[in-house]
């Protein structure tokens, strides 16, 4: 029984939150890695693209809600998400036309493009705050829980509860669907194959008649889609605030780099590695240990490696270790 309780505590406070956070990071990192692989620069505006997409989704959610349109037990935001993706894709394509295209034609080195993306980041950042404000926005509706901790306890008779939020399930399900669709697109469709060809060898791809502008456009649309989905899932599960999306940039880049920049599979693995290490290193294992170990071994201390204040430090440390010892990441991406 105690072992079971230990497992439930672990699931409730480590596994479920870590899995959800990992799925959100993976989607973000996938967008970063895609832009890096095909357009060949680190897109610092990705965090704010997520914020922008989420903002548009929230505005549509409010509009739907005011018309009395709901999605049953699921959040209305899922209905609004396609519109969020549409507007974000249009905005990002516009940015490409106005800003990035100029530097691409000049064949600027990627460092310049990185700095350009920082500029784009500040503009998007300001625009989002200007339109929706800087405060916390909660746009979740529908059923909040699949099962609450209290229901779980009465149902199973255990001492510990396991709460599963609807948004956590939605996050994982949507992430799986989006990633599956993305891999199918990249591996099976003509456009996807031409994108990979373009990524592997630009000159050879051009010789075989691939239209580079089209590849660039499709890449941006995919990046905008991934960013919006990641942003909306994160906002639904936690809360939306432009500033916190900006802060997400670090764990997202850490995920992409740890997995190997430019490698989609690596981005997903990296997302989960970063998420679980952040959660596990800062978790106090006292309760789990008390249940799992015999009574005489029960710990007095908290068994916490690091205070939760240092969560970001975990991403940083992993990032530095990987860059020092495996510059191309765990899954053989491009070297930074």
């Amino acid at each position, binding site marked *: 029984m105690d072992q079971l309780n230990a497992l439930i505590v672990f699931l409730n*406070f480590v596994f479920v939150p870590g899995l959800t956070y990992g799925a959100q990071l993976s989607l973000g990192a996938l967008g970063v890695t895609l832009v890096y692989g095909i357009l060949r620069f680190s897109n610092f505006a990705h965090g704010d693209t997520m914020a922008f997409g989420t903002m548009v989704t929230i505005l549509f959610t409010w509009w739907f809600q005011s018309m009395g349109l709901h999605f049953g037990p699921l959040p209305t935001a899922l209905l609004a998400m396609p519109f969020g993706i549409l507007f974000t894709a249009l905005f990002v394509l516009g940015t490409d036309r106005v800003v990035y295209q100029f530097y691409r034609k000049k064949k600027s080195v990627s460092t310049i493009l990185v700095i350009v993306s920082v500029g784009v980041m500040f503009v998007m950042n300001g625009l989002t705050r200007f339109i929706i404000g800087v405060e916390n926005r909660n746009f979740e509706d529908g059923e909040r829980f699949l099962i609450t901790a209290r229901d779980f306890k009465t149902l199973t008779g255990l001492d510990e509860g396991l709460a599963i939020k609807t948004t956590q399930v939605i996050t994982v399900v949507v992430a799986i669907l989006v990633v599956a669709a993305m891999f199918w697109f990249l591996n099976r469709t003509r456009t996807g194959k031409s994108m990979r060809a373009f990524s592997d060898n630009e000159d050879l791809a051009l010789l075989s008649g691939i239209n580079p502008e089209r590849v660039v456009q499709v890449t941006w649309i995919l990046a905008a889609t991934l960013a919006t989905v990641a942003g909306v899932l994160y906002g639904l599960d936690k809360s939306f605030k432009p500033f916190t999306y900006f802060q997400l940039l670090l764990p997202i880049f850490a995920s992409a780099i740890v997995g190997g920049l430019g490698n989609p599979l690596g981005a997903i693995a990296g997302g989960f590695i970063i998420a679980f290490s952040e959660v596990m290193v800062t978790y106090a294992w006292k309760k789990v240990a008390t249940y799992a170990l015999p009574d005489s071994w029960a710990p007095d201390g908290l068994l916490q490696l690091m205070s939760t204040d240092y969560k970001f430090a975990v991403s940083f440390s992993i990032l530095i270790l990987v860059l020092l010892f495996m510059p191309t990441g765990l899954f053989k991406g491009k070297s930074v």
Partner: protein
Amino acid sequence: MKKLLMVTTAIYAFSGAAIAEEVKIGVLLGFTGPLESITPAMGAGAELAMAEVTASGKLMGGATVTSVRGDSTCVDAAAATSAAERLVTSDKVSAIMGADCSGVTGAILQNVARPNGIAMISPSATSPALSTAEDDGLFFRTAPSDARQGVVMTEVLMDRGIKNAALTYTNNDYGKGLADAFQAAFEAAGGTITISTSHDEDKADYSSEVASLAAAGGDILVVAGYEAGAGRAIIQSSLDSGAFETFVLPDGMVGQSLVDTIGAGLEGSFGQYPGTDSQGAEMFQALATSAGFDGTGAFAPESYDAAALIMLSMAAANSTVSKDWAGKVMDIANAPGVEIFPGELGKALDLIAAGTDIDYVGATAVDLIGPGESAGNYREIEIKGGKIETVRFR
């Protein structure tokens, strides 16, 4: 012609009076930031006292008192300092009613008030560290130090038979000061703090903070934070994960908007914030209701008292220069003398003019001790049926 003459004379007379005797008092509160939901009532409380004095026409022969508002942001010391700097150098205020949060109040005291020789009375800065801060005799507060709140909170918990608690505090002067004071008092009374951790404002997710709190365990979670900030998110996250079910809410966490957003999950949680059952509190509430704001809001009565003390001290010193009137604050606030309640500021001014001693009681039974801070009366509250109900006064 005669009429025109009268009108011109009248305008001349009034404008003359206004130019010669306008007393400006800065109202420096966090109108934006984590306390933005309670500061409107605080500002209104201070301005109510100013309107009362202006209407009486008895402060230094009929001076008008005007309020100049500034935004302390509660958490950003640099922004608060520049707002205070503007009040002092550009608006030329004679006193500052503020600031609200302990960290910014300390910053303003050291960077603006002391260099410029402007006295300030804070209605809500409660950090114990401010009791010992260098202040050149320019700083007072109508709020008690959190050293006192720590003791009161301990009594509340002990009376309910709660012997062990987890504790989380917002990572700043207020949170740390209150958490340390509470932990010391609670452990001295035989209680156990299972864990004491800080949390930072402005994060999207507090599930890992809550996870460590839950791992340490405890019958109850004490949240020394802000009701519109991380404190709320931590309560929500604790309820979501089933980590804690009952919460202790100190002064920064008491607000109706918290009760409204969290809903049924907060039922049965309890806490305390400065308040008194003296008749002054009721008189103030009546005044506030007729002025159109909520007089029971946290720190609104303290704000009224802070502004009233500033003006009565000015009358007693017959000067608006800070170093003159600051010397009178303790005399006005404490016995002996004729007791003064809210709404009686006109009478107080008459008595001061006649040379009679007064003892300002005000809305919060003001009694300043030690370095010029309130001795501290608290209102114990409990969340019942979606409302903040007063249990008793301590």
